[in-house]
């Protein structure tokens, strides 16, 4: 694979101003300050002039610090990180809006960036005029726009409003038109900021489909987002930035994992000592080397405990809950009738249960461990909670948002039964 972007020791420094001084100055201020300085110099020619007062007014801030990475042709790179991690600064430098303080970026091929949908739309101009204007701003040639005009209009679904000024557009129509133009840019490298966070769900899904298409066509895509789910479904490589530095880069799984480990309150294991005179629970964990599961995986839940005083009705159970605290599924040790008594003989035990992640839709889930003596007392109910997300590795992006609710996944065993030989009258009408 050929390299298309090479970033060497890229740094960007900003100066933060304090004490009511804004980033831009006024001429009056500048003139009066310089004047004061000169008067001071004339009045006290012997005292050395210090600029300490001036430098204390602002503070240096490194938005990016020694960032190095390479991007290869056809990569779909997801850039993740918290707010203020330097993602936007990186994109701004790559799209040449602002200059780095030091370091170098080498780019091969035509690069276009989409940091905002509908950049430069003029409210007074019609949809048609804005397509040309916006295309030109994004770097398209007029002939190119003319060639793709019909495609753009068809994608945006606004044919009938083409000659209406965009100020009369609904915000959804505005976004659709903006994205359509950008999606038809013929560039080798496409930089996209979280522009998809807007627009209705159906159009968002359409955008995702289009972006996936671009990626599979061998186009290199840089995608910045907070939404881990969309990054995972769209990208194959990742860069995780924190406070201007690259924390992890490479495989998208590794990056997302490392991001979640630092900033999401995931809990994959629990250690402690909870129980009563019958049982003490010491440990509960999920077996995973990442910070999330894919739907096709089967993570194991391990529980360690010590039985001090056996009781015939003692049991341990787990329940899967969604984030709205609704229980979706549960299982108890006594569901395994044959072996149940073995679990609760005196001494230390370690039991495990294999969870089938494909039973659940994409989303975040809680595992709650409970322990009780049946019909007598609850030993532990809300104390041990594991939290984990499930993501789909490949998903049907067209319908993504329609189904984005945590819950039990019924499966995909839809089959076309025997085709009907004699369609009824009503069926014929439809056909």
């Amino acid at each position, binding site marked *: 694979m050929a*390299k298309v972007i*090479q970033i*060497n*020791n890229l740094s960007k420094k*900003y100066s933060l101003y304090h004490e009511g001084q804004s*980033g*831009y*100055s*006024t*001429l*009056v201020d*500048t003139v009066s300050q310089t004047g004061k300085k000169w008067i001071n110099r004339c009045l006290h020619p012997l005292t050395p002039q210090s600029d300490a007062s001036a430098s204390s007014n602002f503070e240096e801030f490194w938005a990016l610090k020694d960032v*190095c990475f390479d991007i290869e042709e056809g990569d779909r790179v997801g850039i993740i990180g918290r707010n203020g991690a330097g993602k936007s600064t990186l994109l*701004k*430098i*790559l*799209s*040449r*809006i*602002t*200059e*780095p*303080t*030091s*370091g*170098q*970026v*080498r*780019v*091969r*091929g*035509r690069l276009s*960036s989409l*940091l*905002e949908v509908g*950049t*430069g739309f*003029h409210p*007074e*101009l019609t949809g048609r*005029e804005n397509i*040309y*204007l916006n295309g*030109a*701003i*994004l*770097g398209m*040639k*007029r002939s190119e726009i003319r060639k793709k005009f019909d495609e753009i209009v068809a994608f945006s679904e606004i044919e009938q409003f083409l000659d209406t000024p965009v100020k009369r557009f609904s915000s959804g129509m505005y976004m659709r038109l903006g994205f359509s133009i950008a999606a038809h840019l013929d560039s080798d490298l496409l930089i996209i900021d979280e522009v998809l966070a807007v627009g209705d769900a159906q159009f968002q899904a359409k955008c995702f489909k289009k972006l996936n298409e671009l990626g599979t066509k061998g186009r290199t895509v840089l995608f910045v987002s907070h939404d881990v789910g969309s990054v995972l479904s769209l990208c194959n490589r990742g860069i995780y930035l924190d406070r201007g530095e690259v924390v992890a880069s490479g495989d998208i799984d590794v990056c997302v994992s490392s991001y979640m480990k630092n900033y999401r309150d995931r809990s994959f294991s629990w250690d402690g000592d909870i129980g009563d005179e019958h049982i003490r629970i010491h440990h509960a964990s999920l077996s995973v080397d990442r910070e999330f599961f894919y739907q096709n995986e089967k993570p194991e839940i391990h529980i360690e405990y010590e039985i001090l005083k056996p009781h015939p009705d003692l049991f341990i159970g787990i329940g899967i809950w969604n984030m709205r605290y609704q229980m979706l599924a549960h299982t108890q040790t006594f569901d395994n009738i044959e072996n149940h008594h073995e679990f609760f003989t005196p001494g230390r035990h370690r039991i495990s249960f294999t969870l089938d992640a494909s039973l659940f839709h994409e989303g975040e889930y809680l595992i709650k461990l409970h322990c009780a003596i049946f019909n007598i007392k609850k030993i532990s109910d809300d104390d041990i909670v594991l939290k984990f997300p499930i993501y789909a590795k490949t998903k049907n992006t067209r319908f993504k948002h329609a189904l984005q609710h945590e819950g039990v996944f019924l499966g995909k065993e839809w089959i076309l039964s025997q085709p009907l030989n004699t369609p009824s009258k009503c069926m014929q009408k439809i056909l």
Partner: protein
Amino acid sequence: MKDTEFCADHVIEANRVRKNFISDLIRHRELFFFLAWRDILVRYKQAALGVTWVIIRPLLNMAVFTLIFGKIAHLSSFDVPYSLFVLAGMLPWLLVSGALFDTCNCLVNNVHLINKIYFPRVILATSQILVHLVDFGVNLTLLFILMLFMGTGDLSTMWSLPLFLGLAVILCVGTSLWFSALTVQYRDFRFIVQFIVQFGMFASPVGYGSYIIPGMWKWVYFLNPMVGIIDGFRWALFGITQPDMMWSLLISLIFSVVLLISGLRYFQKTERSFADRI
């Protein structure tokens, strides 16, 4: 870390903009016309009277100046109807002052573009001038119609009109580069521009001929680059020569070219921090 085999199409690093300034400009030449086209379209769409506004302004100014300087002060206009004499001076003045007024705000008004997308910023500053050139064209047609109607004009010197127009455009570009960049740097600069535009109308020979400036003051007066340009326009249209016109023209030319070159350098120097500053 450096990979010598990797040949890049373009390199992004500190202070890089200046090196590929020209190639960038050529690549984005269509955007220049698109932005101008946008502004012209919007200008004529929003106004109920459309094109008439462009004509009304110089005509009203002409009427006032003709009344004050021609009818009340009884200044000479060299056998040319005073109204046309004023209009001939008004056209280049409106071109330069209008361009100056609009360009100084154009960067600040287009923050959304500057923050979101890259293109040579010079395009933003200069495409405004095209809009005013269109207005100028409309007004020039009006002037020609009036000249035809009143039977004045000197065809033997008319050939030089494009030269003086060129000089005015150079001055426009120079000032717009300076003032647009300065307005980003110092937000209160637009007030100075307002003042210059207001004051300049009287400091330039718009309503009167530059011959009325006495002796030694003339050389101070000639430092205003508009003097040479307006005198030139009147010479081209009516064949009127003003005293020491060659000097005022020469000073105006030097002034405009210096402004253009220095403006370009200043603009390039500050351009890279526009997005951070604005």
